[in-house]
């Protein structure tokens, strides 16, 4: 019996050093799993007072199972195979974003950002984010130097979904596109002067948008209420009360008075972090922040270790997307960021976000696993 031909009994681990299945980022998987479990608990606590009660957490769990399956599938496929299809995938993402603006889409809270299939609602922006990351990664990953032409091309790829999400209007998602795009451009090696011009143009654009009336009143209000905290909205006020009253150790699971009384609007989705703050206190909520930091760290590390520029850009795109989601979502509940409706990855109730987040982690795992092949 030859020692280097022993097959592991499980059949999963291969002795072949190049086998991607040997290079799963277990820390990333574990951190995501822990965040998911915490998230399910928080969704349960935030929704138990509703009539459908456990219905929310059951549906969230179902999406998680589908998400884990999807992530596993995506991870096992070499991201380079996926990147080869970037034009098609990007096109699908854009078509979905266009379609949602037509009567096919459903308007929720003034935003036409959903497809509704019976009890299930899909938010195409969540998937378009992944398609865009993939497209920019593939488009810029194939070259060593990003010249102006490439930069313009990448900006074009980025600009279409930004404009489409602004049309919904979904300011939060548009910002996510801009942030992940900027992150990828920085890492892709865009020249600093180009970047400087770009940022300047961006600032001018923001001022023009704010003053042009293109945004709905409520959006302007949210942004300006952040700038002048006196006019803090009811949501933010209640969110801070919930988090603040949690103190060091919190009121305990399902015992938060603000949560039980339903004083924080949208608590199971955008304001889910307030449940952690109120019921688990600083100890619990900082643990959640820490676990999310681990997720970011592992995604960033995958970018660093990636075998090629496409892999690096793919991972940094996901990193920036998550980072912005996390910072913006938690930051708004803490009152240091304006209120925009973007979910906390793996925590907020919502199938599209959860599914997309898992697929994103799957892509990062794929880059990590295929770095030797």
């Amino acid at each position: 019996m030859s020692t280097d031909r022993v097959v592991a009994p499980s059949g999963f681990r291969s002795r072949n050093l190049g086998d991607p299945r040997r290079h799963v980022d277990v820390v990333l998987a574990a951190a995501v799993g822990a965040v998911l479990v915490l998230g399910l608990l928080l969704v349960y606590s935030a929704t138990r007072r509703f009539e459908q009660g456990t219905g929310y957490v059951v549906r969230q769990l179902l999406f998680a199972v589908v998400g884990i399956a999807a992530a596993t599938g995506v991870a096992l496929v070499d991201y380079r195979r996926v990147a080869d299809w970037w034009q098609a995938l990007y096109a699908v993402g854009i078509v979905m974003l266009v379609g949602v603006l037509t009567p096919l889409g459903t308007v929720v809270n003034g935003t036409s950002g959903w497809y509704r299939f019976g009890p299930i609602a899909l938010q195409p922006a969540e998937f378009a984010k992944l398609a865009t990351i993939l497209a920019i990664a593939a488009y810029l990953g194939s070259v060593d130097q990003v010249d102006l032409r490439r930069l313009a091309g990448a900006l074009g790829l980025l600009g279409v979904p930004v404009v489409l999400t602004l049309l919904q209007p979904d300011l939060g998602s548009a910002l996510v596109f801009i942030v992940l795009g900027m992150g990828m451009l920085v890492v892709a090696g865009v020249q600093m002067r180009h970047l400087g011009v770009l940022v300047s143009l961006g600032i001018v654009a923001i001022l023009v948008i704010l003053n042009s009336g293109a945004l709905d009143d409520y959006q302007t209000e949210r942004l300006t209420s952040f700038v002048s905290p006196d006019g803090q909205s009811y949501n933010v006020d209640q969110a801070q009360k919930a988090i603040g009253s949690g103190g060091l150790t919190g009121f305990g699971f399902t015992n938060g008075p603000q949560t039980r009384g339903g004083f924080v609007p949208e608590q199971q989705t955008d304001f889910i972090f307030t449940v952690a703050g109120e019921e688990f206190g600083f100890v619990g909520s900082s643990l959640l922040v820490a676990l999310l930091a681990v997720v970011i760290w592992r995604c960033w590390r995958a970018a660093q270790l990636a075998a090629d520029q496409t892999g690096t850009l793919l991972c940094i795109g996901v990193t920036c997307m998550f980072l912005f989601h996390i910072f913006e979502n938690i930051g708004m509940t803490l009152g240091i960021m304006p209120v925009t409706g973007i979910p906390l990855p793996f925590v907020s109730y919502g199938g599209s976000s959860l599914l997309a987040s898992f697929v994103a982690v799957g892509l990062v795992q794929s880059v990590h696993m295929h770095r030797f092949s």
Partner: protein
Amino acid sequence: MNTSSTQVRLSAIGIVAVCLFAALLVRLWFLQGVDPQRFEAATESNRLRVIHEEGPRGRILDRDGRVIVDNRTMIVVALDKEPLRRLEDEERTAVFTDLADTLTGLGVPTKVSTVERRYEDVRYAPQEYVPVAEEVPEDVELYLAERAERFPGVVVERRTVRSYPYGSLAAQFVGYVGEVNETELASVEGAAVPLAADGTPKEYQPGDSFGKGGIEFAEEASLRAVPGRRTIEVNARGELLGEVDRVDARPGDDVWLSLDLDLQAHAERLLAAKIRSLRGREGGEGTLNAPQGSVVILEPGTGQVLAMASYPSYNPAILVNGISTDLWEQLNDPNNGRPLYNWALQGAYAPGSTFKPVTALAGWRAGIIGPGNEEYDDAGTYRLGNCEGAGCTFQNAGRKRLGTVDLARSLAVSSDTYYYRLAELLWINRLQFGDNPIQDVATEFGMGRPTGIDLPGETSGRIPTPEQRREAFESNPEVFMTGEWFTGDTVITSIGQGDVLVTPLQLAELYATIATGGVRYRPQVISKVTRPIDQAEPPGAAGNYEVVRTVTPEEVGRIEMDDDFYLRVLAGLIGVTQDEDGTASRSWSASPTAWTMGGKTGTAQVAGKADSALFAGWGPVAAGVDPEYAISVVIPEAGFGGDVAAPLAFRILAPASDGTLPTACTIAAAGQCRDADASAAQASLRDVGSGGPG
């Protein structure tokens, strides 16, 4: 594959990420670690509502424990402003519209504009529930409770309010309850807060109820419940999640009155009927308007009030939900006879001849009249000595010649000249008898100042003296013609005219004191205060209450009257009813009481108006029998006392004297009442102020 430049750029992203997470954690620590208490208070005001519960007021009972003023539960639909404030304007308007439509559909007509006005009414504190519909039926309560989701911020409350089983009976006497005003609130603050028997303070909050008159006011401290407090947890929609803390309210103490409800009802009924029959008739001195009237019945040996009727009356039930300006004006309109007034102690009238026993005692004490020196020839007119002109002659009613009268007969047939002479002799010999011999006796009997009855609002009446007149003139020479007191002033004072004013209560007290032979008691209406044991059982049932306080009769004076005088006065006052030519003998024969009564009629002249009719007396009068009832009847602008007031007094006391007093009728049982007249009278009394709840 990664170039070093890419690594640098990646590091930049990493540093940004670390900074962002650090920012999150620092902010998180700032919120949760530094001073979490400040947020706890804020979330408590979010979710905790402290509901002040006033608790049921004590009830008011008659001498037999029958409930005159009771409590009932009223269902109120109210707004909890806190959750409503959180709604968008359109959502809130939608809730209000839905609420108004729903209430109207369920038979409680409600306007959206009313609901909105109440919601915006700044007089309600943010934490306070704002009532939008009172007196809603129970099915509305159920309907709204089952649809709490649809009506965020709408609460249904049960409030305890007053109910009046006997309608308007004894209305001015028991008073009414209304929302406490700032002055009243200030009067019960701090050290002045009423205490329960065990020393628990009965604290007030704006919006609480407060006794506004009569017994409700006088016994506010006893009747008020020890308030309770409920701390409840509500969710963002104002729905009840649970009770955090509860201190139950303790019902107020019950107040027992000396009142005999049957006698009260009977007196009110006859008084109302009499006044209605008088109105519009022509009397000697003008139209009989009889704008008001009162009857007071005291127990002579204790001073307890057995009945106190004041006309016109009103049903205090109309004031339960607050009072509109319209209704308030109606109830205080002199053209309506001021139904809110208790004329028995707030009205002051010239007593006329009913005052004569006072003058007689003054003359007797001075020695002007006495045994063997009491006869006088009444020629019908009297001319003052040393006096020339028309103003020097005074006359009997109708200039009637009465011939030789002694003291007893002067009362029985009501000779005026007999008293004119006494008065003149008293005044011209004032160096010997003092300025005020008559006034001093009147004061001894309690006139000219409040009797001290345990009811609010009592007026003093007036016993005029030379000194008073001088002072009044000196302080205000423009208003008064003169500061001087003339012989004629004493002369008209002697027959209860001129400036003399007494309240019907003082008049009843005068005759109660005569009835007891000179022992004067403070009139009182409250006999005891009890704490109920079982609220559900009748409060008057034996063994169902603990006595907190008993009010005992209080002697406030003894009037010296020697036997010779007293026997003559008795003979005279009995003669009023029993002698053939006694001033009340005709009406006596028409409706006598079962036992003999003594008393005196009075017909007081009032400038420009018809005469006031008065009668005051007592019964039974017999050797060795205690007097049971002293009565005064006063009806202004009504004609002769002997024709109007005396027969009313007899008819009121007749069934009491032979034990045939009809049982007072509750409103609920009015249909089955023996005396059909009773319910008719009740109904017409309720008409006063029929503007409806305010």
